[in-house]
């Protein structure tokens, strides 16, 4: 069933796109990631213009993170104060990212930068996840404990203006989460990802947040920042395709619900291993795309 995307200006198979949304939703329900890192590259491989792929998958992530955030709210798993600081940082980050996106678009380097960032980010995070999951699954032996981990990173402890974040169990400067939010907001605009795969580890290992509120708070940040990013894209690049976003959403919101149920029946380490393999596969495919001679050497920008 072909459907014409009014903003992208081409026709896609509606069932394929909804199925893609469904698979990504399933994953995000199971492992608690937004799944934008999968949607955007696959849409680009499918032939959707990169700007439209990035912008529309951002819109989709907003929808997917709603139900997760609601579930965590019921369990009081959201630190609103921390969330607000992250959202503030993320909003500024998405505005700055919007400017950068335009600049890169005008110089013709946006596609290369998107692909490079994907390779670097997904490659390193996939490797870390695979290692961690393999250790948990007893596939590789953990190294004999080298150094006891410090709860507070010294770089963050020196920042001035400390606030209390009761639910996170922290007394730190809001500048640290603000900077974290800013970075992930920029990534959201550039890559069409929620940034959960950066924020969650950073919250645990850099900020030292209490793990019970990490996922809920990161979902709150993703929800608001992707919403802000959709607005940034809608007004600057004008590449949000509402039809594409709805097709993706129809699949992903349902998939996420099934994923959440399925997750309770499977070992979480196994899930993380599967996710790590998928992440590495996407990174590998992106790297190949950069290094191999592309089928199309030329491209056209309208002036």
């Amino acid at each position, binding site marked *: 069933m072909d459907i014409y995307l009014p903003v992208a200006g081409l026709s896609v198979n509606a069932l394929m796109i909804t199925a893609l949304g469904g698979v990504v939703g399933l994953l995000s329900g199971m492992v608690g990631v937004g799944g934008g890192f999968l949607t955007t590259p696959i849409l680009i491989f499918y032939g959707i213009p990169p700007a439209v792929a990035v912008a529309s998958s951002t819109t989709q992530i907003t929808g997917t993170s709603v139900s997760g955030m609601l579930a965590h709210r019921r369990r009081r798993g959201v630190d609103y104060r921390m969330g607000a600081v992250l959202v503030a940082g993320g909003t500024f980050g998405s505005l700055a990212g919007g400017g950068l996106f335009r600049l890169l678009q005008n110089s013709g380097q946006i*596609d290369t930068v998107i692909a*490079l960032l994907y390779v670097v980010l997904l490659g390193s995070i996939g490797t870390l996840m695979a290692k961690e999951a393999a250790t948990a699954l007893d596939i590789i032996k953990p190294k004999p404990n080298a150094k006891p981990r410090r709860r507070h990173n010294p770089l963050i402890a020196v920042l001035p203006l400390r606030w209390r974040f009761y639910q996170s169990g922290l007394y730190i400067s809001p500048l640290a989460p603000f900077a974290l939010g800013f970075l992930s907001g920029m990534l959201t605009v550039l890559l069409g990802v929620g940034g959960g795969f950066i924020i969650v580890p950073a919250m645990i290992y850099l900020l030292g947040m209490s793990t019970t509120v990490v996922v809920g708070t990161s979902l709150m940040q993703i929800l608001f920042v992707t919403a802000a990013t*959709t607005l940034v894209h*809608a007004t600057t690049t004008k590449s949000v395709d*509402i039809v594409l976003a709805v097709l993706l959403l129809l699949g992903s919101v349902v998939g996420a619900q099934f994923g959440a149920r399925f997750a309770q029946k499977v070992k979480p380490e196994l899930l993380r291993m599967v996710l790590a393999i998928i992440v590495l596969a996407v990174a590998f495919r992106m790297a190949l795309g950069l290094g*191999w*001679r592309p089928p199309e*050497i030329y491209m056209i920008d309208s002036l």
Partner: protein
Amino acid sequence: MRLLRALAFLLIAPLVLGASEPKLVPDVSQREIEIRYSFTGAELLLFGAILYPGGRVPTDRVDVAVVVKGPVQPILVREKQKVAGIWMNVESERFRSAPSFYAVASSRPVSELVDERFAAIYELGLQNLQLSPGAGATPEERRRFEAGLIELQQRHQLYKEDPNGVEITDGVLYRARINIPARVQVGNYTAETFLIRDGRVIAAAVREIRIEKLGFERFVAEAADRWSLLYGVVAVAISLFLGWAASAIFRRG
């Protein structure tokens, strides 16, 4: 460009007015192509009749060429090169008047029909497009980018050349099929028909075709462009609603 057009008109004018030369009565299957929700492209049929003075079909061969052209626009063509192991855009070249769509079909290869000068005047054939490249580049660079542009557009089915695409029946009726892909730009298109004999264009006629988004598709595209903030707000609202609805339904079930 404009000069060429004027010259072309001067060349045709006496021929069209003269009573001793044949006349073209062209038509197209669709004056308007509507882009709707399941648009996967359209097939355009260009057909018509050649009217000879006195109604007698002459014995010497006549040929017909048809050209469908989309809105002309200024573009920037970028060329990828390998830099430090990575393929990235390096050089670029401006073209001030590249048609967004161009299809030519003829009853014989264009090179056999007219000489280069006429081909350039009427923009007959992919090699004869008047793209108006920027002033800075050397002729070789210009040719390289032109070839790149044409190849890319051919790949996307936006430029095409069919040397045997026009069928002439009994020297009087002609027909040609041209496929319009889903990726076309909206706007005013022209369908030109040329009657050619002995390397000269002896009659020409133009029909206009409008390609536009209609209904919902038009509404969405216009909203995204004109009321972009509101459009963004609506997009966010829809995604929030769908996310909430799915979780509400599943919680009950």
